[in-house]
């Protein structure tokens, strides 16, 4: 079996809801009940009764829980042979507030999905008092005919897990370990009619949920929200969207509509005007255009004109105010106008400064989340630095005491002081108290005998020989630096420099035995999606001019990426320092620009830029950009209805065995995934491939490659089984079986690169 698997579960529970029991006859049936007990020293305690919240306590759903709807909101042309579905992030959400334990394999969810045609008698309004929407079905529309039967509600909610299980792993363990592979789903069993506009609504299934959402007093039983006898119904709606059915929005049709076109003139470039900026501009001089992150093939980034560099050089630097991007990592505080390397190219070109400022704007937009993530990584650094601070203070106090009271002692007294600390083999009789008493300066023998210099033990003699001074050796034993350092090392471990050389180096710089702990967070998240959200016109300038349903070939601009990430890191460093984060200034926390999630250039590949401290001062800006995406030969951009209806379409390349057949996909060398991908709302997606267009198209160089466009494999679709006229719930034991019967396989369209990249014959004179 070489194919992956989908696992379906009819229900899933977590938390205290997984311990519910049947309510006793005198207990409230509208809430869940737990059997909680306690013991004190083995004797049982009488615990107060515990109830779990039920559907009557909920009036709204967190919008963030809805991660996908099929069809997308506002879709047109949805195929009538499918069911509408909605996916939730938490795999236990549809059964979280059901106040009963499961009945075998069936458990009724407390939410369900309904679709209602927009016609007379159906109205969806927002209730301002409670802030939720209400759906009213009355008048010429019969609610019993439009709404599904709630007796089968157990069948239309399931959990899906995509992928094979690891060996020896149960499904529950897999769901807990890989949360991104599991979703919970509600399916609406209503058969859709063609060319009708529908409301799709997530509504409660229990009457008390309906009453709580509408602000009415609650009933006392757990009845369903509607029955076959209700012809007029009002329901609160937790989530809703609209769509229209029709033809032409199947995946295959949307792929067929794509055409390869030449990019519009000037794509990827924006004119750049500095006349209002305050820079002294020679008369008639203009700046070359600013090139975005993506640009047309063959676009070159012209260097900044010399007058701009001369004008900016005195203004940039720590003393004068304009930030010096990358200065801390390069160890520079100013940059001369004729600097040949990346520091001058980045800081003295107004366009690159503008791009770096964009990066700073993105960081300011997400500063709370970035700072919280950095603190999370730092662990107990505040406690560690408090400990270091008090240790330094203690060392200073002890040194001052030592200097005042101990250092002035005579060597003989000092030796006696130190003797108890020595771990030598045998004690010298000369250091014992009796001997000292006899040989004291004004004692019985002082006038008659000149005592020899008090000899110290072997250990100290050896140390004295090594360091060249008996006195110094004794003082070294007493040094508070050593003692404080050792105590600190016990508590902090590896952070404190271990060897004597390292300690001496640290002490030499500021006279302290140990320095505060500085940390460097690593934030692996890609920044291109943030740029696409904040300023998409800089990710791809001129994207609005791209025609609908077109495929373009573009390239990346490494200057933009390096300048952007330099700005991001500079702003992040200043933001963290303002929040008193102990930041190691030479680190580069964010090194990733292009988004590699779900694509082949995964976590194992090197990041987009290297750490800025390692950039060679003589290199240009593009030289610093060494990541895997530097090897992206072509960026394929697709704009069209395909991406409006299937936003996370997967695109990859499979080698061709001959112009009509694929090579064996099981061989990993025959499949090329994109290195990165990205999206520009609402209908543009781009993929960076490591294979050039000429290699892909084949011909003289070989059979070439096929492009494979497929629906996202975790985003499955459901519909009535085409070959089975029975209702899907007939004879099914659980919702998992219903899901199995109604599952539609994901669609994949393969097209040879030569077909996809064949230029549309031009009609009106535009030429590549």
């Amino acid at each position, binding site marked *: 079996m070489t*194919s992956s*698997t*989908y*696992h*379906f*579960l009819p229900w899933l529970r*977590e*938390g*205290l*809801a997984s311990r519910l029991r049947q309510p006793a006859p005198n207990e409230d049936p509208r809430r869940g009940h*737990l*059997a*909680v007990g306690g*013991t*004190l020293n083995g*004797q049982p305690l*009488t*615990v*107060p*009764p*515990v109830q779990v*919240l039920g559907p009557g*306590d*909920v009036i709204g*759903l967190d919008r963030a829980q809805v991660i*996908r709807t099929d069809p997308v909101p506002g879709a047109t042309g949805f195929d009538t042979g499918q069911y509408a579905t909605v996916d939730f992030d*938490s795999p236990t959400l549809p059964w979280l507030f059901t106040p009963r334990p499961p009945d075998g*394999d069936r458990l009724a969810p407390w939410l369900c999905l309904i679709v209602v045609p927009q016609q007379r008698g159906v109205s969806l309004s927002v209730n301002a008092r409670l802030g939720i929407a209400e759906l009213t079905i009355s008048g010429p529309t019969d609610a019993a005919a439009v709404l599904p039967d709630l007796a089968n509600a157990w069948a239309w909610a399931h959990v899906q897990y*995509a*992928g094979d299980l690891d060996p020896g792993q149960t499904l*529950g363990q897999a769901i*807990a370990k890989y*949360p991104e592979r*599991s979703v919970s789903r509600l399916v609406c069993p209503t058969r859709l009619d063609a060319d009708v506009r529908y409301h799709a609504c997530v509504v409660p299934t229990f009457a008390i949920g309906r009453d709580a959402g509408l602000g009415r007093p609650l009933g006392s039983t757990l009845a369903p929200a509607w029955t076959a006898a209700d012809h007029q119904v009002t329901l609160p709606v937790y989530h809703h969207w609209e769509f229209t059915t029709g033809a032409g929005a199947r995946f295959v049709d949307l*792929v067929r509509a794509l055409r390869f076109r030449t990019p519009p003139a000037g794509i990827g470039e924006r004119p750049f005007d500095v006349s209002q900026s305050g820079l002294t501009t020679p008369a008639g001089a203009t700046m070359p255009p600013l090139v975005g992150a993506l640009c047309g093939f063959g676009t070159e980034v012209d260097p900044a004109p010399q007058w701009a560099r001369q004008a900016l050089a005195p203004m940039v630097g720590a003393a004068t105010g304009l930030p010096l991007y990358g200065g801390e990592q390069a160890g520079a505080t100013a940059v001369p106008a004729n600097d040949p390397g990346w520091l001058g190219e980045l800081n003295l070109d107004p366009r690159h400064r503008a791009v770096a400022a964009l990066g700073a704007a993105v960081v300011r937009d997400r500063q709370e*989340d970035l700072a919280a*993530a950095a603190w999370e990584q730092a662990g107990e*650094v*505040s*406690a560690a630095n408090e400990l270091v601070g008090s240790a330094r203070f203690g060392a200073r106090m002890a040194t001052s005491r030592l200097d005042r009271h101990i250092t002035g002692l005579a060597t003989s007294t000092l030796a006696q002081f130190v003797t*108890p600390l020595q771990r030598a083999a*045998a004690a010298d009789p000369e250091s014992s108290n009796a001997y000292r008493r006899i040989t004291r300066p004004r004692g019985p023998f002082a006038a008659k005998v000149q005592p020899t210099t008090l000899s110290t033990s072997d250990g100290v003699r050896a140390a004295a020989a090594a360091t060249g001074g008996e006195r110094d050796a004794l003082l070294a034993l007493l040094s508070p630096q050593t003692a404080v350092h050792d105590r600190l090392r*016990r508590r*902090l471990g590896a952070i404190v420099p271990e060897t004597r050389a390292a300690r001496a180096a640290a002490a030499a710089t500021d006279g302290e035995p140990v320095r505060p*702990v500085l*940390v*460097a*967070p690593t*934030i692996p998240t890609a920044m291109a999606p943030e740029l696409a959200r904040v300023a998409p016109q800089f990710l791809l300038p001129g994207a609005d001019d791209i025609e609908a349903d077109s495929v373009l070939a573009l390239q990346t601009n490494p200057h933009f990426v390096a300048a952007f990430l330099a700005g991001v890191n500079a702003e992040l460093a200043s933001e963290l320092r303002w929040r008193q984060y102990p930041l190691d200034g030479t680190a580069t926390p964010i090194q990733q620009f292009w988004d590699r*999630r*779900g694509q082949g250039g995964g976590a194992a590949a090197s990041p987009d830029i290297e750490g800025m401290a390692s950039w060679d001062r003589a290199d240009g800006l593009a030289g610093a950009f060494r990541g895997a995406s530097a090897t992206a030969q072509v960026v394929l951009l697709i704009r069209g209805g395909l991406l409006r209806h299937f936003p*996370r379409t997967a695109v990859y390349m499979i080698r061709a065995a001959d112009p009509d057949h694929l090579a064996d*996909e*099981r061989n990993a060398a025959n499949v090329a995934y994109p290195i990165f991908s990205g999206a520009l709302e609402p209908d543009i997606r781009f993929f960076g491939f490591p294979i050039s267009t000429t290699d892909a198209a084949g011909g003289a160089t070989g059979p070439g490659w096929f492009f494979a466009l497929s629906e*996202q*494999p975790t985003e499955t679709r459901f519909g009535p089984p085409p070959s089975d006229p029975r209702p899907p719930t007939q004879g099914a034991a659980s919702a*998992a079986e219903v899901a199995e019967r109604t599952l*539609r*396989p994901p*669609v994949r369209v393969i097209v040879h690169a030569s077909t996809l990249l064949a230029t549309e014959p031009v009609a009106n004179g535009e030429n590549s």
Partner: protein
Amino acid sequence: MGDDPSFLVSLGGFNPRFKPPEHFPVPRRLTLSLGESDNPRLRLSAYLALTSNTVQFGARLDLYASVSVPVVGTFSISALLGFDALITLDPLGLVVDIYAGVSLMWDGDPVLAVYLEFTLTGPTPWHAVGTATFKFLGTHSIHFDVTVGRRAVEPPPVLVDLGGRLRTALEDVDSWSAALPDATGAAVTLAEHAAVPDVVTVHPLGSLTVTQQVAPLNLRIDRYGSARLTGDAAPPFTLGITLDGRSAEAEPVREDFAQGEYLDLTEAERLSWPSFASWEAGARVDDSALLVPPSAARTVSARYEQWELGPDGVVTPLGAADLPDDRMRLQVAGGAAAVNGAWARGERAFAGPDIGVAVAKPTFAVVRVAPPASGVIATLQPEQIMVDSYAAAREALRAAAEAGVRRLRLVDNDEVPAG
């Protein structure tokens, strides 16, 4: 909130004998300047703090005045008067530190100074210990120690059924509370309903907590305030929580207890120990295991429905094609759950690897002191090493001493020998 919940309210900081938990922002004293000029100046600073078992308050009055006499110099006088009170509620106790002083200075050097400080503890008997210092041509101190309240007849020791009191506290519905899950976990908006009396209501993803301040758990207790213990249940008290008849995994919840009220301390320990310790006082049940239907999972093979788009724009169906698992695992990371789910929002979107900075908890060890061989000082061999609980280490020392082992010492932190 969080791992170590505690209740504190502070206007102007805490009593110096009380150590607030880490990361609690300690406010500065509330300060009021009486009078308008800078010389003389009169300042009053005060604070009030409440914690779950104490009331703390204090005030301090500072006076400063100086006058500059030509040729002779500047004379200044500064005086202070203040007190810090710490009242423990259960069992009742009071500690007041009172201090007062006046000093006359000539050009900044003190010529005549009087300083008095004493500590008053109670309630019965009232005991004042303090020092008075005079500085005039030299420094002289007088120490005094006064007990007021006759203890002529030792009253019969009060016996307290601490186990019974603890049981009553644990069975009280006010000791039980339910916490909502944190913001990312609640998933729904809840209606506000009137609370049902005598019932604990909990969110299905939330946690159930029981806690009390009568007595610490899992610790040998010697007394309760000034009373001795009696009753059926004897310390150490252990609490177990069961769900569905089976014992549930419960995390301990800690509260601050005044150590001197529960343990018999020697004088040295009483002086050197912190006044409050964080001991186990309850449990939190936070069951996050998934309940999976035992045999109802269905497995479907994931295969594509494959089409080919030809050069003429015609799509032809090609049947089914395999979807290999490594491709599924790769593309899952770009699916809706990964891109739109909880792990891609907010702070978790930027999560990275932990740097690994950690401070080791204070460690205590019971060590055997070997008598010194000639020239060698005593060596320490660790018998037991305990992390982060002085009380537990002290227990172990006492248990070992009762077993007849001699020459044991308790060492802390950095003197714990390795290995």
